[in-house]
């Protein structure tokens, strides 16, 4: 296998890891605040449909992006109302919203475009352009590093870079700001926040809504960046892979990046059976698909360190006497 193939695979890895990363960080905010979010998948799907459809109708990917965020936020809001306001079962709420999203996206897309639940292929300004980073062409001739910079790091839609930047930003927000301190506290012991005179509900809602925005970016990237349009069930379980990555990363931002890159790498390998053959490793495609889940179970089993979720995760907060 040559260097160029390597680069191709890493290039694909980065592309495929981006939606995982957005969704994983979304889950991180929500779960760090004590609200479990199985509904990442549904929010992504909703955002993909909304952004794909609006981009197709308006011809502008940016209006589409906003629509995607709004669509995802609507679902996040329902999740917040169910699990924070009415103290419902957070897991069930997430599962339910995934089903609603799975159905309603097809209903709306079919009604708008009549193409079997798909949007028409996006073209021109309705797609997210790939941007070339400065000096990409200048540096290309430099051996090893040049092509890496020009082909793998440069040349992605802007959301890829936004996703990468969100990792340090999230770390900073969580560990260096007042908001982050309170967010982490509310996921560990909401009573500590409540008795300190800070609203548990408001904090948790903001976390859930941040998750909504991030899932919106994930979905919009899928429909307008990674692919040219929305197709039914196009997220194909990525929300759950992101959830797996979140557990794999033990709810920490930098680890989330590595987990998503790893899982993205598996996905890109699964797309290249030729490479697998060339290296002489015979891993069946389905095994690669299942690898993120298997690794997550291994982590959950405590075989590789212990994954301790936020202590108040999944429990509605009730003031006690």
């Amino acid at each position, binding site marked *: 296998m040559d260097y160029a193939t390597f680069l191709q695979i890493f290039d694909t890895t980065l592309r495929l890891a981006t939606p995982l990363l957005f969704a994983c960080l979304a889950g991180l905010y929500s779960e760090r605040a004590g609200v479990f979010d199985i509904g990442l998948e549904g929010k992504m799907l909703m955002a993909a449909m909304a952004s794909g459809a609006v981009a197709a109708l308006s011809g502008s990917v940016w209006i589409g992006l906003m629509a995607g965020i709004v669509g995802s936020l609507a679902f996040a809001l329902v999740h917040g109302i169910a699990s924070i306001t009415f103290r419902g079962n957070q897991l069930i709420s997430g599962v339910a919203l995934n089903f609603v999203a799975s159905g309603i996206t097809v209903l709306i897309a079919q009604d708008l475009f009549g193409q079997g639940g798909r949007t028409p292929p996006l073209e021109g300004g309705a797609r997210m352009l790939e941007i070339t980073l400065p000096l990409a062409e200048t540096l290309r001739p430099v051996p090893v590093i040049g092509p890496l910079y020009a082909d793998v790091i440069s040349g992605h839609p802007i959301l890829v870079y936004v996703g990468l930047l969100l990792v340090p930003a999230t770390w900073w927000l969580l560990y260096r*700001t007042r908001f982050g*301190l309170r967010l982490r506290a509310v996921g560990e012991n909401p009573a500590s926040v409540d008795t300190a005179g800070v609203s548990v509900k408001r904090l948790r809602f903001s976390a859930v809504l941040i998750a909504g925005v991030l899932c919106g970016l994930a979905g919009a990237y899928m429909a307008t960046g990674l692919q040219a349009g929305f197709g039914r069930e196009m997220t194909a379980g990525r929300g759950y892979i992101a959830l797996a990555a979140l557990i794999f990363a033990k709810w920490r931002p930098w680890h989330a990046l590595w987990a998503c890159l790893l899982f993205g790498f598996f996905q890109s390998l699964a797309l290249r059976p030729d490479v697998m053959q060339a290296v002489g490793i015979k891993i069946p495609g389905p095994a690669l698909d299942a690898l993120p889940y298997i690794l997550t179970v291994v982590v959950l089993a405590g075989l590789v360190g212990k994954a301790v979720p936020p202590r108040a995760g999944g429990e509605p907060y009730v*003031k006690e*006497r």
Partner: protein
Amino acid sequence: MMGAHDTGRQASAAPFAIELKGISKAFGPVQANKDISIQVAKGSIHGIIGENGAGKSTLMSILYGFYKADAGEILINGRPTTIPDSQSAIRAGIGMVFQHFKLVQNFTVLENIILGAEDGPMLATSLGKARKVLADLAREYELDVDPDALVEDLSVGHQQRVEILKALYRQAEILILDEPTGVLTPAEADHLFRILRGLKDQGKTIILITHKLREIMEITDTVSVMRRGQMTATVKTAETNPEQLAELMVGRKVLLHVEKQPANPGRTVLEVENLRVVDEQGVERLKGISLSIRAGEILGIAGVAGNGQSELLEVLGGLTRGTGVVRMNGKTLDLTGRHSDGQSRRADGIAHVPEDRQVLGLIMDFTAWENVAFGYHHAPEYQKNGLLMDNEAIRRDTEAKMATFDVRPPIPTLAAKNFSGGNQQKIVVAREIERNPDLLLVGQPTRGVDIGAIEFIHKQIVALRDAGKAVLLISVELDEIMSLSDRIAVMFDGRIMGERDPATTNERELGLLMAGVSEGAA
């Protein structure tokens, strides 16, 4: 000083730090607080004493903005103040140290201190400032804690200091402590009292909620007594004595006098040698307990809550594992293996009325009859046709037990949660005693139970003893221990400090043992 807080209305005297006027609060039909008024002078330590469920915590929750009072008025430093939420309480200068700490376990001490009281959106400035303030407070009040330690690594006493520091960091002038010594060792409690005196000397006002008379006598300036939601009296501590306070608390002169004949002990039923229990956090809770109980006697275990009594009950009842030797009717019990569970213990003739009936003893959503079978669901008389449970037989049995124990209402199909505390306890006691066990383990048999049921339950326990059975009684109510027991052992810090004869001992002697003062020194 006077001028600073002068509101014009009270020109003659300094206003009270806190004044409550006619506070009432009901939860549905339950009147938790009825027309409560108190006045707490600035720079004093005021005790509020009362039994469990007397309404102390509700009153303090109102003061801290957790509940809104149905009626009444709160004055802080003479100014009428509304406290709709905790933020307002903090702003009014009130700090609260809850019985169950409100700390984030995997945060550092500093992070816990600044949480909710940060200066600006960036943490760095807040942390720096808090570190300095903390150092000052530590010097001033003996409140040393490592600011960078994780709370989960701190001892309970230190965690409580963090709570106090949190309040002081928020510049609380009024500090409320809810049952602060329940989880402390005597040494830690002494330290806490030194801290409180120091705070008082600096002009802070302190409200101490407790049900321990000794603490009230030791540290407070004035004391209010609560009973059944009402404030029965407020007196100067110097002008009262424990007997008077106890009477005010309970409402009648003699709380407990159980009619019983002298014990007639027979063969040894339970022998415990060098029993040790280590909890999940790796802390040794029982540090080598040895005791024995004979047929026909009640061994009472006295002690401050948290000194290993719960663990003793749990390991004997098969809920937790331990090491050492426990012999029941001469048979060595399994303390670690697959027979160290509740079923095996029952098979060996041990019945167990647990300390917390709502968490352990009953399934609150189950009906009364389902609860009567609880733990005895394998009993042959509850089965039929080999495979099935004979629900009809259990219901009949429940009706019989309800009649014997006067459970009201006598409806077997009613859910446990729909019975009063006393009747719930009667169901548990009936279930365990009617099995005619050789040994009855019983923890806090009358906690949260009304007077009538208390007498009834006590009679049943004595009757079991008179029937030649062994009873191990654990209670934090010293009166209960003294009036029921034939022998009294005192537990402190996971050990038995000594044994006394109830006929010859007194509260003072037991109190010293409970405080960890060993026999030689006593």
